[in-house]
């Protein structure tokens, strides 16, 4: 029976060190739910609602909406889009993002190169203002990532949050929870 405590100790150590045979994404923060697919996973605040949609070119998108504020603006929204077998590059994608930001009146505050789980990525931040039906102008903040995996899957992960809402404080945790998975 001597082996047992050692095995248990080893197992406990393994768990603590996170060295399981599987490379699962880390657990999501407290109060968050996980959205997991074959290619990526991320955490979002419980109480936010995921739903599918399409973008202007008919490609599917995923949006996770926070609760609605009295102004009609959602208190936070995650927007995810994906292109498989993307034949372009991230620099071209950034040119497109900058153009769209200009056309939509967004003010870019940060664009920088980064990496996510070994894949090339870009991080963007922007500010803009939207006007609600009652005329209220709400300053907004956008933080996002573009990731291009080795299998040429392009992922766009955007988080929008209004000034004066509770979402802004959760953006770093949401962004930090975004991970790539094996099926990419």
């Amino acid at each position, binding site marked *: 029976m001597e082996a047992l405590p050692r095995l248990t100790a080893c197992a406990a150590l393994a768990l603590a060190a996170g060295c399981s045979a599987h490379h699962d994404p880390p657990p999501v923060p407290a109060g968050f739910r996980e959205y*997991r697919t074959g290619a990526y996973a991320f955490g979002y605040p419980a109480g936010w609602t995921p739903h599918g949609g399409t973008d202007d070119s008919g490609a599917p998108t995923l949006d996770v909406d926070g609760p609605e504020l009295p102004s009609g603006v*959602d208190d936070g929204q995650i927007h995810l889009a994906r292109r*498989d077998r993307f034949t372009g590059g991230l620099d071209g994608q950034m040119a497109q993002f900058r153009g769209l930001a*200009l056309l939509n009146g967004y003010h870019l505050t940060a664009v920088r190169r980064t990496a996510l789980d070994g894949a090339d990525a870009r991080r963007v931040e922007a500010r803009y203002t*939207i006007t609600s039906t009652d005329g209220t102008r709400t300053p907004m903040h956008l933080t996002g990532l573009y990731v291009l995996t080795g299998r040429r899957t392009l992922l766009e992960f955007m988080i929008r949050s209004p000034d004066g809402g509770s979402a802004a404080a959760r953006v770093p945790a949401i962004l930090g929870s975004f991970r790539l998975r094996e099926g990419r």
Partner: protein
Amino acid sequence: MSPQQRSPDRLPDRGASVPEYAGILALVAAVCASLFVLGVPGQTSDAVCRALHRMHLRDACAAGGGNGGRTDPDEPTTACTTGIETKYLEETVTIPTRINVRTNSRGTVQLTRRVGADGKTTWEVTDFTWGEGAAASPDFDFGFGKFGIWGGGQFTNGTVYSFDNEKDAKKFFDDLVDHRIGNTAKFVVRTNPITGGFSWLIGKTPWVGKYYDRWIGGSEPEKKPSADYQEGGPTGGFKGELNLWKVKLPFKGRGWLIDGTRTDHETGQRTTYFTRKGEGEVGVLVDLGDVWKALPKGTRERAAAGAADALALAVDEIGKRLAGKGVELSPAEIDKIKGQIRLNPNIGLNVKHRGQTTWAYTEDKDGDPISLTKTGNSQNVIYFRADGKAKGSLEGDKGELTAGKQWILSSQRTVTDKTLDYDDPQDRQAFEDYARTGDDGALDRYFDGGGGRMSRLTYDVGGDTGKLDAKGEAGGRSKFGGLFESSTEHQVNTLTGAQYYKPGEGWVPWKRCLG
């Protein structure tokens, strides 16, 4: 010219063909938008002088001695496209699966002739493939994880090769057409969004790979490209958020499609093309019988005899019916209609108008903005029907005919470029105002008042664009095994007019472009 008689805007059984238009029109916009900023003061005057010489306006040169090297600050500094020849192959594949997969690929080889700011002519051959991947489904939850097909949307890829003489460019163009498009079946396998991926993979396997590539038409020419196009990626949900929330839209229909990004290898500049979703086509049917009824008795006979005033009355009346749908006729189009009325005062006209706005955003190699160009690309195709009656059809928004034959009387494209120079503080302010308010009228007033630069180019559109066009006509399309259809088309755009805008004077001839 091959006997294929198709017009580019057929496919009446397919609903949304805006992405197709976007692809084709974007090509035209691309060559006229601010790709190069080649302001070369001093040299322009010689080119202008030569052009004026050719137009027998020698005095203008002699007097000013070449106008002292001054360039007109209102003259656009961009290259001007004087001709475009396009050959394209389109194939549509419908694969019946649980998730209905219908995909579409287009391959285009295009030869473009342009005159730069220095007056020199260059040629470009663009090898383009784009497709609409309709295979797209969001993630379905299978209990053990979510999976979906995310190949949706449209994609574009292209390579550009530059030449300084027409002979080499034409040979390259012809060779590339044969190589890329020559064989429909191979083209389908290579470019179709579903099978295309596998084709690429086979091309990469050792000792079979390199021969497969050449056979399938996927191998690249030896010549180094001068630029390439990359497909439009996700649109960041910029419009989506405005839809989902109960917010007041700054202006309606702000959804943007990305046609693609062009990277110039020499300068590192990138230009991205955006078009607005939802712009489409208008069709107007006009029966001359109705026109004569609205005019004084005897007008028809006098018009057939060639009386100028009677013809003018007729085209005026036709113009009113078209204006109601937002379509305007150019002087050249009016002349052609008059000519046809003289031959047969009982004709019917079918006028199809397609207009699209494209924004081209150019940044330098470091990602800093250089310019923004708003391009209006409109095309009128005027068909005439000898029998004068649209049998069994009603005049409506689509202008479709249910039976009968018609012929193209005129096909003209007008490309209007409005460019804002990001280095100019006033231009930049105008753009920022536009981005905030979406007020097209205010932006146009800025240009009309002398801000920015404007040019207007008119092209005759010919080639195998279809002398014959009637709904249900199968000409030029082939079906293979019920799964896919292909069609080949050939279009030639020839410059017939070029102007730029001088505030205080209006539209003046753009001699550098025409000369």
